[in-house]
């Protein structure tokens, strides 16, 4: 019996004008477009300089800043309020004001003070921008010091900091985002689509034809899920391959660990989709419910911002999000070389959620309404 039903589902998917195209488009979009956009990297910060000194030294400072690669010189202004005007219009993100007498003061041995103003509407951008600028200026003064006072004996208090970034040494954003985005793709295909499928049958009435037959609850649900499980696995594997060829991202951990997690995740997520399909009677309702939950999961699962920075209540909610664990698995397997034993802390919660969601789905499915 199951065989016939699964066959029917596959046939219907193939014949649908939209679905096959969408299923192919998902991985493409996720791997080829999204990573370019979903990028918190701060680059091309627009800098406007108010240079009251206009000396060789101040020019040298500005040149050094420009060559650091973080900043784009947006222009010079005569005074602070003009510069602020540029920030207001969004033409500049940061202002550097160099005081009159910059050159002379440095030569005399007194300490001139520069003013950095950063637009912190985007806190990260403002914060990093002013930090970069500060670093460059500090480097500049170290350079000058070097020229005048080469290494002498009494520098015991200097320490140099060597920073090492493990697992992602060049701090590439795609390495961070792409594994997580793959999870989203899996979520949409194995959670979203089966739910829409079932709701579609409700809307067209064919579900009633099924309800009068001897087909059991479990069989019917399985027949709806199996095709999407298969498709989900295939698409996921396809994304793994694509990620390698397009981005050079290769798994450093255990492939087995990864697929085990995928299995758990897919079962969990499709259970969740089922729950929604039990409560929604129209496409519109299903869509909105899914949108609502996907949104909550997205924001609270460490996809964009780290869970560690969230307030307590948000962290608690994130424990219920299958996405959170899956994203950790993917980043772990891709970047940190995790194996099955490393991921115990992810498998267990996923397993619990899987049982929870699926039980709820089965109970709430009412064949005899």
């Amino acid at each position, binding site marked *: 019996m199951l065989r016939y039903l699964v066959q029917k589902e596959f046939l219907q998917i193939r014949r649908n004008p939209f679905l096959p195209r969408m299923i192919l488009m998902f991985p493409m979009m996720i791997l080829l477009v999204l990573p370019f956009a979903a990028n918190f990297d701060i680059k091309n910060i627009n800098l406007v300089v108010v240079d009251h000194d206009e000396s060789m030294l101040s020019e040298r400072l500005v040149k050094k800043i420009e060559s650091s690669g973080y900043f784009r010189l947006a222009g010079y202004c005569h005074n602070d309020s003009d510069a602020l005007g540029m920030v207001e219009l969004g033409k500049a993100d940061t202002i550097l004001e160099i005081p009159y007498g910059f050159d002379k003061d440095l030569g005399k041995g007194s300490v001139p003070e520069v003013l950095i103003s950063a637009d912190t509407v985007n806190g990260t951008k403002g914060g990093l921008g002013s930090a970069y600028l500060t670093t460059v200026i500090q480097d500049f003064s170290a350079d000058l010091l070097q020229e005048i006072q080469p290494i002498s004996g009494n520098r015991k208090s200097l320490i140099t900091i060597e920073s090492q970034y493990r697992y992602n040494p060049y701090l590439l954003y795609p390495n961070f985002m792409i594994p997580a985005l793959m999870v989203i793709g899996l979520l949409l295909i194995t959670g979203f689509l089966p739910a829409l499928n079932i709701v579609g049958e409700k809307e067209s009435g064919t579900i*009633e034809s099924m309800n009068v037959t001897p087909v059991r609850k479990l069989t019917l649900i399985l027949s709806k899920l199996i095709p999407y499980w298969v498709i989900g696995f295939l698409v996921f594997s396809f994304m793994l391959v694509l990620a390698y060829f397009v981005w050079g991202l290769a798994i450093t951990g255990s492939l087995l660990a990864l697929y085990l997690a995928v299995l758990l995740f897919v079962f969990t997520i499709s259970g969740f989709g089922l729950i929604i399909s039990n409560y929604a009677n129209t496409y519109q309702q299903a869509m909105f419910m899914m949108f609502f939950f996907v949104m909550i999961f997205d924001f609270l699962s460490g996809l964009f911002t780290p869970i560690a920075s969230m307030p307590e209540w948000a962290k608690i909610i994130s424990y219920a999000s299958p996405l959170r664990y899956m994203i950790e698995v993917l980043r772990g397997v891709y970047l940190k070389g995790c194996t099955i034993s490393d991921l115990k802390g992810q498998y267990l919660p996923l397993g619990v959620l899987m049982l929870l969601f699926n039980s709820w789905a089965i109970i709430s499915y009412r064949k005899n309404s």
Partner: protein
Amino acid sequence: MNAIIASNLTKKFGSFTAVDHISFDVSEGEIFGFLGANGAGKTTAMRMLTGLLKPTEGKALVAGFDIKKQSEKIKANIGYMSQRFALYGDLTISENIRLFGGIYGMDAKLIAEKRDRLLDELHLKEEKDSLVSRLPLGWKQKLAFSVSIFHEPKIVFLDEPTGGVDPAARRRFWEMIYAASEQGITVFVTTHYMDEAEYCNRVSIMVDGRIEALDSPHALKTRYAASSMDEVFQMIARKATRTAD
């Protein structure tokens, strides 16, 4: 032997009583017409008999099985054709037949044989691989009926099977129903076309959730001194207080 025995079957939705303590029997091989105006409670009653809805009160036996406790066994022994002719529009005729045959446990060879025979009879052999959604309404209707009796169930339930089809097509459809009845299949059909009542062995007329009349068309016409079932119905339905769904 009775194919269906209903006793005090009732369904309430909150304070609204859709089906009000109805009792009736249907003999094996009978064509039983379940008549009534829209909103009288026919569909609700039928959904209880097919195991889709649980009754609030009362009981019924369908094909010898209790509708409350043995609904799964009932489903294995009945066929069903719903108001919306629900076959899968995006599957071909052949695929639909194979699906429903398989669900009722028929083996693949038998399905293929019967399918070919069926398509021959319906003159749909060339359309074997056409999508059901492409068929005109009349063909879909005949097909849906054939699929509903494909697995030779004991009873077939037809819910307003001839809605929206012209009178000539309706008559041809009823010829198919006769053929099924001759094979020994009990036919339980709801309709609001009173002229179709003439085709049944016995009919019941529901008004406001209760059965107001139950007999053969001939006997009813005599009792109410009417020349057509339509007249009979008008007389009985005048007492109705409920309007359409």
